[in-house]
């Protein structure tokens, strides 16, 4: 009788980011699913834990000149530069549509200074549709500046990271994730700074700085020059960062970087990710997230894992 009951109950895939309960650990990551509008034509987003929107900024941004996408071995470089229509447009034209997706909505924000982060956190907190905020501290394609100090990336400086997270923490009761960069010497101290300032989760990793050159014209393929590398090529790098972060903080990790299949996702969970983010894979297979959520469940059934929480960080060497 007891075992029957357990069978009926099935596998528990629910995970938490702070007070936010996700129905499963699969998210689509920022910049790879827009605001859900286009990708929902190809996949049932309600089958996912949630989506992280394309980063919004207070003012609209045009992004960088094109070309701003180029293929690389098993991946791609981008230099979009946070093109978006701004906070007001999000509130008036996007928030309503997001409500209908039936999945958790995590809004990614990037400010040019602390006040902008505060304004966005405050405005977003008033919207019922917003389940959580991801603070983008690590876009490789825009200039970063906090408190008058310029940084290549905010996420390269633990004090700047701490300041931004603290300000957002003071402003909102929503769960917050800090999105960190792999372009650092020691991710542990940055992750600790974010945790210490009140982050509920660490999103890792953003893209790696990368370059491609056309040997005929001797010009860089991207108009901007340097871009951010993503896709299957960066998966081992991302996994190693997840391992390092897992060993240094207690808050959950939203692991991302090259996840294209459920096997990739399980690898991240075993390494220490509580949540997995599907990014660049969406460009090639817009239903990747849904397939990955199904695959994780099947893996758990086959391996008699009743609760996904018991799988996290079980890696051995």
């Amino acid at each position, binding site marked *: 009788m007891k075992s029957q009951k357990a069978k009926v109950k099935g596998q528990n895939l629910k995970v938490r980011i702070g007070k936010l309960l996700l129905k499963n650990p699969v998210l689509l990551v920022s910049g*790879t699913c827009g605001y859900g509008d286009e990708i929902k034509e190809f996949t049932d987003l309600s089958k996912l834990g949630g989506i992280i929107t394309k980063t919004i900024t207070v003012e609209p941004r045009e992004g960088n000149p094109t070309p701003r996408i180029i*293929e690389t*071995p098993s991946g791609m470089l981008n230099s979009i530069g946070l093109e978006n229509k701004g906070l007001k447009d999000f509130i008036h034209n996007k928030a309503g549509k997001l409500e209908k997706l039936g999945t958790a909505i995590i809004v990614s924000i990037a400010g040019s200074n602390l006040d902008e982060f505060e304004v966005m956190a405050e405005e977003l907190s008033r919207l019922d549709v917003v389940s959580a905020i991801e603070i983008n501290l690590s876009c490789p394609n825009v200039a970063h500046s906090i408190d008058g100090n310029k940084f290549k990336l905010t996420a390269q400086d633990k004090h700047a990271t701490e300041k931004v997270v603290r300000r957002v923490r003071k402003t909102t009761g929503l769960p917050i994730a800090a999105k960190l960069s792999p372009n650092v010497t020691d991710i542990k101290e940055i992750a600790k700074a974010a945790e210490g300032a009140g982050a509920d989760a660490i999103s890792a990793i953003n893209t790696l700085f990368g370059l491609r050159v056309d040997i005929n014209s001797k010009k860089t393929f991207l108009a901007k020059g340097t871009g951010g590398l993503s896709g299957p090529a960066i998966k081992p790098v991302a996994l190693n960062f997840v391992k390092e972060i897992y060993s240094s903080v207690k808050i959950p990790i939203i692991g991302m970087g090259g996840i294209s299949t459920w096997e990739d996702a399980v690898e991240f969970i075993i390494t220490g990710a509580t949540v997995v983010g599907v990014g660049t894979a969406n460009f090639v297979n817009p239903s990747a997230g849904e397939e990955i959520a199904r695959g994780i469940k099947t893996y758990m059934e086959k391996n008699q894992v009743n609760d996904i929480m018991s799988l996290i960080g079980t890696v051995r060497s």
Partner: protein
Amino acid sequence: MKQIKTEIISNKEIATDHKVISLKSAHLAKHSKPGQFVNVKCSGQTAPFLRRPFGVYRVRKDGIDILYKVIGEATKLLSAKKPGDILDVIGPLGNGFSTSPLNGNGEQKTILVAGGHGVAPLYALAEEIKKKNKKTDIIALIGARTKAHLLCEKEFKTLGAKVIAATEDGSKGAKGFITKPLLNISGGYELGDKACIYACGPKPMLRAVAEIANAWNTPCQISMEEYMGCGIGICMGCSLVTRDGRKLTCKDGPVFDAKDIVWGQ
């Protein structure tokens, strides 16, 4: 638009470096319009990673044809596919050409300007114009590197179109770019809406065509080319500047009114 597994019916060379692949798909046959494109996964592995966009060349009863140039790794893989193989395709995508500027009163010329394999969607358009029985003379201006690379000359003629060719090496038609014979068509007059131009090809060609159309005060639609990541409007890679702000080539285009494009980025 849908992600579908299509069966390859044939995959044949039609000119140097150029092939036509025929796909079986009721969905693509029913919904594809000239100027729209499909995004094809050429590799079953992670490299080449991204899909490749191809304009619809012919809409058949049971599927569509794609005309493609074998350029790099992805198109080499596509070129090796055999009849019976399955191809992962997303489509049809984007907005196609509009035939509404054609009034069909017989006094108006339809001018198609193609550079290289940019001829593919224009041929689809010519077939549609014929199917709709629009009274218009179609002039197809086709530019290519050499005579061996010249595409669809016979096909256009079969449709009853007048073909004017230009090759960069002069091996067929006028020597140089296709915009030179385009200029000759007007005979120095402003054509206005006595003509309607549709163009597809490399960006510098499109820009030149747009300038000519502007000088003639002639309606002109162009299919824009930008490097695309996803083809469905989520990666924001193929953004271009229009008079109405930034637009995505994949989702808002690839066909635009030439007047709306802000050049020189």
